[in-house]
Structure formats: C-alpha cells, structure tokens
C-alpha cells in the first residue's frame, strides 16, 4: 500500500516506550516468579479498589457521569481537527506558543530545541505518560540536558534506572528497603544515616527536590485536559511537585497527546468528578493546577504546548478501536484486572500497562509490533465496569485479536490463558464469564480456537468458568 503525507501513521520504531523486548507471555512468566512483586501489586490494587468503590458509592449519579464522560470523548474524537485548532488559537491569544509533533522524534526534537534556547542544562519534570511514551528523558540526556523527575515515585524509578510499572503508583514494584538503597546510591547529597521509614524517605526526597525546584528555570509537564474553548490546560496531582514545576520556572513546556483536548470549560465538571474517584479513590486529588497561556506576573512567562500525534491518528482510523483514545489514565482498569495483578506493568512492555495498555499499545504501534498484548486478558469484563469513561476494552481486545497475525499470537494467547486460568482465584469470577459469552456472541467472530465455543454458553452460564474451561 502506498502512503502519503496525511495518511494515519503508527508510532515509529526505534524511539519511545511502547514496545517491549519480548512478547507478553515471556515477560509475564518472569514476573510471575517474583513473589514480592505480586504481593505488592495485590496489596496496591486491593487497597485502591476498596477506596475507589467507597467514594464512587457516595455519588448517586456515577453512571450518568460515566455516560456523559463517554459521550464528551466521542464528540471530541469526531471533531478533533476543529477542537485542536480552537485550542491552538486560544493558547496563542494568551501568549502561549503551540507546536505540532507528528511523532516521538519530532516531539523530542522540538522540546530539546526549546530547552536549548533557554540555555538551561537541567529541566524539572511533572509525571507524564506522554513524555514517557516518547522517551523524552533519553532524548534530553543525549542532548546533554539533565531531566529530573519530581514525582516521588518517578524519582524512585529514575534513580533506580528502572521503568514505571503502574500508571498511578509507578514504583509499586519497589519496597521500602529497595527505595532506601536506591536513594543511598543515586540521590545527590543524601544523609548516609537514612532509614527506610516512609516519612524519612519522603523527607529526603523533599530536601533534594526543593533545591532543584528553586534552581531550575525550565519545567516539562503533560496535561490531563486541554480545553479548546478557553485554551486552559489542567494537571491533576497529589504531591505538589506539579504545582512547583508549573509555577516556579521561567519556561514551561507541556507535551499533550492530541486526544486530551475537551471542548468546553464546563466539561471539567464531569471529568473532575470521574477522575479522582476512579483513580486514587479520593473525592478529589490534593492538587489541580489550571493555567491559560501566560499570566503576567504569575508563573512561567514563556509557555509552549506541544501537541503529539505519535500513532493516535492511526488509532482513530479504526472505528472498532478508536474509543481507546477516550482514556483519561485513571488506572482503574489496572486495579481490577486479574492478569495485571499477577504480572505487573513491566510485562506489557509499554508505558501503558494493564487492560488499556493491551488495547492502546498495539494500536499505537501497529498490531504486528505488539501482537501478543490483545491476548493478555481473561476477557472477564471487569475493566469495562471500572472504566469511568465506559471504554469497552473487552470488545476492543476481541477485535484486535482478530487483526493480530494469527498463528504465533494464538500460541501466545493460549500460553497466556493457560497460566491465567491456572490460578484458582480467577475461577471465583465465574460470574464474569457471562460477559465473555455475551461479547463472543455479539461479535460471533474474532475469537481464536476454543474461544469460539463461548458462543454456546447461555447468558448466565449454568456451569462455572472452570468447568467450562476444563471441558472445552
């Protein structure tokens, strides 16, 4: 097929963190052997699930909010070009500069050049999936610029020469004694008498980062929302490092995926109710910062917004998969996923782990490069129920399985399924199997091998999932 400029394009190879070194089943196998990792993950996902469930139950209109969030996102995707141009116009009017980056290479080059122009050799960073996706830190380092992650977990990951394993709690695979070791080895000026008490570790990070905040002139962030109508950007966080980065430096550079635009100011009334409750299980996250271009006398006086495609237009081109772009990165789907709970985030090989990663990464890279990911799921449906913007992840998984290069991935699927189904706890989720039956029945295709038999299941299966699996 010939391509021309303007054809939807996937994220380029050789740059960024969307592709793992090995397929999911192999990576998962390694993770499964790590008891510590599994204990940490189970603790984290169970705790966050519990908190989230309690605060969601406080809202009588949770389902209505989800439907509104889903519809707003569908609307965004359908008129993305117009909304992006509106956002650009509003940001520009307010003294910001908007840049467009077709892929990771362009985005990295734009940001590197912007930092170079300031003369700064160091930047402070707010936790951001988009900059991880494009491997901005590596690009900056290659250009002689030191990026300092200021989110505590990201700092732990960065100092440990590691990759994040969870969207929300990126260092959840580390325990306190490992964190102490990492700080002692890699944190400049750390007290050698450091203990592994969490408040002591946090205080050490506070001290180190305070000095860095006050002496660094350039910050880089992502954005949770960019409002077309007003040109307002929003960053949602807990620690206050975001406020520091977004307020103290002279120059602020924000890298935002094009799908993060929302049409109107009032749409925040929906997302600010959905995101914290689904994500950290709080009624509201400790801090949210919103800014519109440049405000004279307050905050950075030089503001750049980099709008990133990097495969998003390719996701958009698939009607059955495009709703993966509705994701607001809350991580609720990770926390309910039995496969994620056992394998952890690294097994997915991408900065986007868990159920959303299993549908987003293969679409961003082209399915050939992540062919095993759509099989990294038991199709139990828990992710759909948890998703605050109602992304039907199981249906997209089934759709992508159909598109995956078959023979190899089917073997991968069966291996992935075998270990998952081998875990007794999963069978307690027999109720969930009903969803699998419905999905399979609705689509009637796209299920490899034995999965097709799901169509014979009644809506609520008379036999348990385990019995069905055994007799398949």
């Amino acid at each position, binding site marked *: 097929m010939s391509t021309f400029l*303007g*054809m*939807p394009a996937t994220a380029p190879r050789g740059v960024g963190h969307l592709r793992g070194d090995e397929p999911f089943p192999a990576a998962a196998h390694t993770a499964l052997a790590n008891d510590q990792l599994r204990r*940490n993950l189970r*603790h984290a996902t169970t705790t966050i699930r519990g908190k989230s469930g309690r605060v969601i139950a406080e809202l009588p209109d949770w389902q*209505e*909010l989800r439907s*509104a969030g889903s*519809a*707003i996102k*569908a609307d965004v995707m*359908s008129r*993305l*070009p117009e909304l*992006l141009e509106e956002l650009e116009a509003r940001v520009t009017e307010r003294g910001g500069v908007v*840049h*467009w*980056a*077709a892929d990771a290479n362009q985005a990295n080059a734009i940001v590197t050049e912007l930092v170079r122009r300031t003369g700064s050799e160091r930047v402070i960073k707010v936790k951001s999936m988009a900059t991880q996706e494009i491997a901005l830190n590596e690009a900056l380092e290659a250009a002689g610029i030191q990026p300092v992650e200021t989110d*505590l*977990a990201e700092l732990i990951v960065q100092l440990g020469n590691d990759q994040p394993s969870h969207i929300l*709690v990126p*260092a*959840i695979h580390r*325990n*306190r004694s490992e*964190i102490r070791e990492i700080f002692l080895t890699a944190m400049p000026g750390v007290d050698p008498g450091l203990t592994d008490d969490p408040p002591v570790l*946090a205080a050490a*990070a506070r001290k180190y*980062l305070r000095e860095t905040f*006050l002496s660094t002139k350039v910050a880089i962030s992502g954005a949770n929302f960019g409002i077309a109508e*007003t040109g307002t950007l929003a960053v949602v966080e*807990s*620690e*206050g490092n975001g*406020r*520091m980065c977004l*307020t*103290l430096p002279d120059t602020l550079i924000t890298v935002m995926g*094009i799908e993060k635009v929302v049409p109107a*100011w*009032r749409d925040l009334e929906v997302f*600010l*109710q959905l995101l914290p409750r689904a994500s950290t299980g709080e*009624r*509201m996250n*400790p*801090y*949210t*910062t919103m800014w*519109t271009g440049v*405000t004279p006398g*307050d*905050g950075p006086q030089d503001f750049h917004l980099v709008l990133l495609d990097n495969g998003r*237009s*390719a996701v*958009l*081109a698939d*009607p059955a998969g*495009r709703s993966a772009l509705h994701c607001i990165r809350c991580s609720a789907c990770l926390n309910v996923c039995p496969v994620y709970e056992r394998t952890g985030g690294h097994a997915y090989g991408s900065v986007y782990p868990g159920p959303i990663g299993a549908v987003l990464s293969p679409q961003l890279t082209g399915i050939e490069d992540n062919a095993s990911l759509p099989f990294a799921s038991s199709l139990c449906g828990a992710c759909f129920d948890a998703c605050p913007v109602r992304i039907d992840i199981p249906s997209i998984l089934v759709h992508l399985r159909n598109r995956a290069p078959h023979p190899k991935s089917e073997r991968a699927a069966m291996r992935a399924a075998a270990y998952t189904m081998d875990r007794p706890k999963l069978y307690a989720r027999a109720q969930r199997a009903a969803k699998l039956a419905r999905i399979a029945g609705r689509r009637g295709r796209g299920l490899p091998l034995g999965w097709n038999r799901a169509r014979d299941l009644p809506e609520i299966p008379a036999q348990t999932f385990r019995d069905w699996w055994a007799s398949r």
Partner: protein
Amino acid sequence: MSSKDVILGRVRAALRDAPAPGPVPRDYRREFPAADLDVLVDRLVDYKASVRRIGSEQVAAVAREIAGGTVVVPEGLPVAWRPEGVLVDDGLTPDRIAAADAVLTAAAVAVAETGTIVLDASPDQGRRIITLLPDVHIVVLRPGQVVASVPEAVARLDPSRPLTWISGPSATSDIELNRVEGVHGPRHLHVLLLDS
C-alpha cells in the same frame, strides 16, 4: 507541509467515514441544595486539614497563633485580617517566601462534597508561588464562597485566571502505599471558616 497540516490531514483521513456522535447526555446532578458547611468541615478534616469556625475579627490573632512566626500575605488581603508584622508580597523572591513560616490568603470557592478549596489568584489570594513554598497555608473562607458540588464550582470560576484546587495538604502514597503528608507543597492546611 507543516507538521500541523500532516497531523490534521491524518486525523481528517482517519475520521472520513465516522458518523456524527449523538448529543452529550447531561442528566447527572446539576441542581444542588445549599452547601452544607458541616459536610465541608467533615471532608476537610478527613483530608487532614484543620478547620476552625471563627468570627472575622479573630482572623489575625488565630493566624498568628497557628503560624508561630513570619506570615506572608498577598497585597489584597483585608487589612483587618493581617497579623502584626506580616510580610506583604510585593514581588518577594522565592527564597524569602520559602523562609516564611506560613502564608495567609483568602479563597475563591470551596466545594463541600469534596473538601476542596480553589484559589484564583485574585488580589486577596495573590500569586501562586506564595501558597506553595511556606510549610503552612492558612485559608480564610467566607460562608458564601462554599458551594455543594464540583459543577457549581466550575460554573463560578473564571478559566482565564490561574487556578489552584487544593484538597488537603500535599500527600504521596508512593512508598508501599503508605500515605505521607507533605513531600512537596505545604505540609499543613488550616482553614478558617468565618461565621456568616
């Protein structure tokens, strides 16, 4: 061809056959009863903020007692609220702000249901930096500024101003999911809720 043209061209190509989506259903709660101040207090305390309900004439004395030292205030803070010897922010350097013991500001809006206080950089709240560096933030809240819900707060706010939404002091749960207060921002949030 600019990158902008490339991206917009790709997006248009991707959406060529996309059907127009339906209208956004807005049948979530949009009418709310008057804000319940007890709910606000409950939520703030749940977030480890301290709350005191006082008369407006007590602000200066209570703020001084809480701060126990230097207090930074924005230029537009009502004079009657200022403790003696305050440091008025007329463009203070970050070092001087960071060296202060506390900052005292007003607020724009508060949300009872979520325990959130929003600052919009009005003259009685000042530049964002002053509420960021001192370890203690004391916020004075007038009852008329409290709304029940997030939609009401969004409706009241002006997006062209820099906005800071605060729900409790800085917190992290990054080390084995243990909540630790104050990795970065103010470690203590005190809310002085005025009588009507």
